[in-house]
């Protein structure tokens, strides 16, 4: 995803702005800035993040 792409929330029509988002998984929390809708809170997780660092961290925590 191009960093300069301007994303809008389809529901609210608002431009997404970077906000700190907290993720909880397997009893751990992480926070990171993601583009969010200032009105409804929708978070855009860029594919490279979902399939890259987030997937790596998820798998590290998924021990049996």
């Amino acid at each position, binding site marked *: 995803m191009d960093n300069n792409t301007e994303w809008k929330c389809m529901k609210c029509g608002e431009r997404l702005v970077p906000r700190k988002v907290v993720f909880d998984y*397997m009893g751990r929390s992480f926070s990171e800035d993601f583009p969010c809708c200032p009105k409804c809170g929708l978070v855009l997780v860029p594919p490279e993040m979902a399939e890259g660092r987030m997937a790596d961290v*998820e798998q590290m925590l998924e*021990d*049996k």
Partner: protein
Amino acid sequence: MNPFEQFLSAEQYREYQLEALNEALAYAKRNSRFWRERLSGFGALRSLEELAALPLCSARDIIERGAAMVCLPQNAVARIVSLESSGSARRKRLWFSDGDLERTVEFFAAGMKYLCLGGERAAIFFPDNENGVSSLLSQALARIGVSAEAVGPVSADALSVPAGADILIGLPAQLRALALADPGAKVKGVLLSADYIPRRVCELIGRIWCCPVLTHYGLTESGLGCAVQCSPGSAMHIRHDELILEIIDPGTCQVLPFGSEGEIVITTLRREAMPLFRYRTGDIGALSADKCSCGSELPRLSYVKGRAEELKKKINIHILDDIFLSRDDIIDYTARMDGAALAVSVFPESAIPAARAALAAAFPALPARFEAGGLFGSTGVLKRRIF
């Protein structure tokens, strides 16, 4: 249905399994892209023998297409377990629903009744992860009135049995080291799991603590639980309500009869999140059709000899475990290949001459070096290996 409390005849179980298997096949084809493709052209089975006609699947399928095997939406998945897989840089991921985890807890509760009495206290020497082995075992033990504490892997700094623990559950090499280091502990029972279990390790622990030592065989793919002994030295009762086990020739992939040694293949019957049909475990073992002394007439898992990949090597960790871990004077060891030579670290150092002699007796021509060290080269739930 609980395989341990209702002694159905083998024939009644086969009827149940055939019905459950056909339901599972239909469910998987309806809900999973992978299984729809893999099982296309296969209709309902008329007998359990027809299972052998279905294609096998392997760790590679899970690594490459695991997500397409999942039958539930992501929000119905309660737990994913990621595992390192030998021979691949990518991890295997296994999906479980709440119902899948609940049935594992039921199995653990039924199995642990063989070892525990209500009011006893158990120490679980596995890592304590959310909805992981320790947590599911603790829930199971609570159901049979046993309080459990997840104490984590045995540590070299704390080689003593936790105060008040009656029942110990953990890896064979770790609990064996604990028995040698703390022989006076008042242990009432031991369950070994999660790695190859040399028969003589069970005998050694049982002799030191004068208590029953039972073994459990399970893998994440089987829903963590798979088969457990009801008495020391016996074949293991299989989780028949949830799994069908086959033994195949790893070369020809033909199904082998009871008593023959080969690769263990599992089929899940009630898995909601990620059913597996004819999954090659990579473990070598044998099934038995003999009636158990407890009265059960159902097939059992006679023994698990180790991982096929390891057993192909002349010098492998299972053979080394058989050589070193059957001795009282060696508390632990680790081994690594150093060119053509085997480098063995032994704990305690005073056991090095005995370790050298034991290895030379088994492999006279093998160049080997010995040094002090070797306590808990594998920790947590990682399987032992030659480094």
